[in-house]
């Protein structure tokens, strides 16, 4: 029964993740994006990438809180959709906004901190997306794969930095995101124990054998 629930849940999440793309395409076709569709596309695709990243980070705390092990595969679904909107974001910026002017893009990357931060976040997220198939877990080894995918926390923090750096005026938006992200990250740090904070970044609190076991269970559920 739990398996059926997981499948329904994953279908619902997938549909939910495709909806923004559908809305965007509809607006694109009907002029709903307003006077500056390029700017609107860049902004909304980036927002969806970040929101789905936050949703991805919310899976583990929710799973622990509700004791619903079968939520675990949603991390991959949400993470990949976050990457998908990230790709859209980068394409809108590079192809439409900058018209593939690589000189201008390179200058932007080097001269402007928010673009640099965005590039770092995107490259790392691309690395995580590329190593998301099951056989990559086998190829890398479960331990190394896990450590690599801890980088998702770095992606979230660097993306928040990207947002802070491009906000104008005293907007509340980055503060709201900051609080949300802190709420999602703090339990992870605390569960590992403050004295061993450094180790906590690379090691899970659970013993190795159960970590490997849970990974096998998760991969079966996919």
């Amino acid at each position, binding site marked *: 029964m739990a398996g059926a629930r997981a499948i329904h849940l994953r279908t619902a999440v997938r549909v939910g993740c495709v909806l923004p793309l559908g809305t965007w395409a509809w607006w694109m076709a009907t002029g709903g994006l307003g006077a500056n569709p390029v700017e609107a596309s860049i902004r909304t695709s980036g927002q969806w990438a970040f929101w789905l990243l936050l949703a991805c980070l919310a899976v583990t705390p929710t799973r622990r809180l509700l004791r619903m092990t079968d939520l675990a595969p949603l991390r991959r679904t949400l993470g990949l959709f976050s990457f998908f909107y990230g790709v859209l974001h980068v394409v809108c910026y590079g192809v439409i906004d900058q018209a593939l002017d690589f000189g*201008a893009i390179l*200058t932007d990357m080097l001269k402007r901190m928010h673009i640099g931060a965005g590039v770092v976040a995107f490259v790392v997220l691309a690395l995580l997306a590329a190593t998301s198939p099951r056989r990559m877990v086998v190829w890398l080894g479960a331990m190394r794969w896990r450590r690599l995918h801890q980088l998702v926390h770095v992606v979230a923090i660097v993306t928040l930095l990207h947002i802070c750096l491009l906000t104008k005026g005293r907007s509340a938006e980055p503060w709201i995101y900051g609080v949300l992200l802190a709420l999602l990250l703090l339990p992870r740090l605390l569960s590992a124990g403050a004295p061993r904070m450094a180790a906590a970044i690379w090691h899970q609190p659970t013993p190795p054998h159960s970590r490997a076991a849970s990974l096998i269970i998760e991969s079966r559920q996919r």
Partner: protein
Amino acid sequence: MLIRYRQAADLTEAQVTPRQLMVGRRSVVGWALAAASLLPSPAAVASTWLQGLPRVDTVGETPTAYKDATSYNNFYEFGTGKSDPARLAADFRARPWTLEVTGEVARPTVFGLEDLLRFPLEERVYRLRCVEAWSMVIPWIGFPLAELLKRVEPTSHAKFVRFETVLAPDQMPGQNSRLLDWPYTEGLRLDEASHPLTLMAVGMYGDPLQSQNGAPLRLVVPRKYGFKSIKSVVRITVARDQPPTTWNRMSPREYGFYANVNPAVDHPRWSQARERRIGEFFKRDTLAFNGYADDVAHLYAGMDLKEAY
């Protein structure tokens, strides 16, 4: 610049006035029209005093669509989103309105809006370049600020002009946040303010200004980034010293006091070399002083424009 006064017969009205607003009002009026055909409708009155004005086109390109110019802009008094002003300005009351002109002037005056409409109005088609690298072409209706300044007679101490937006948090939701320091203020050097291109606008596209565009009275300085063209002005103070201005105080490295459009000086967060004209897909090159260099460059002779950005 050569200021060309065209004959009324040369006007290409179709290009300049997609008058959705008036059409909307008239549809309401239309129902009553058969019964009350002898009474002039308010819409008809509003449109006639802005029609048939002398027209100066400094651009020579098709103006931005009226819908875009009235639905996409920055006016943080109503919110940070580009569509917030159009969405949230419905409750804004632009009438009655007074403009107080004080400071280093021989004749401090409080003008009613009706007084201001008696200045020689004309239509001016100007480029508008936002500091965020998008741009429009707008047919403004207004009068040169120089005419207003002449009326109040600046004293020999007058060096700068300070402008202030209305403070009305009950009608401007953005003013309830700490987004910026309210009220919004801007400033010009007196010679910049007195330049014939500097306009006090009361209308656009043949209609009175919409609330989201700074009704009922706003500054238009086409050679400077849009944030200098302060909206919904209630006070003008002629001053001895350079006044503090909102964005400059907020982030001096990003927004200079002068803020002349300059493709050679980047904003710290993006390039100013190119701009996206609203309605066009790809960007076009930004012009020095937004295309008005011949008219205004002499005002900044000897100044390092990289320093005085």
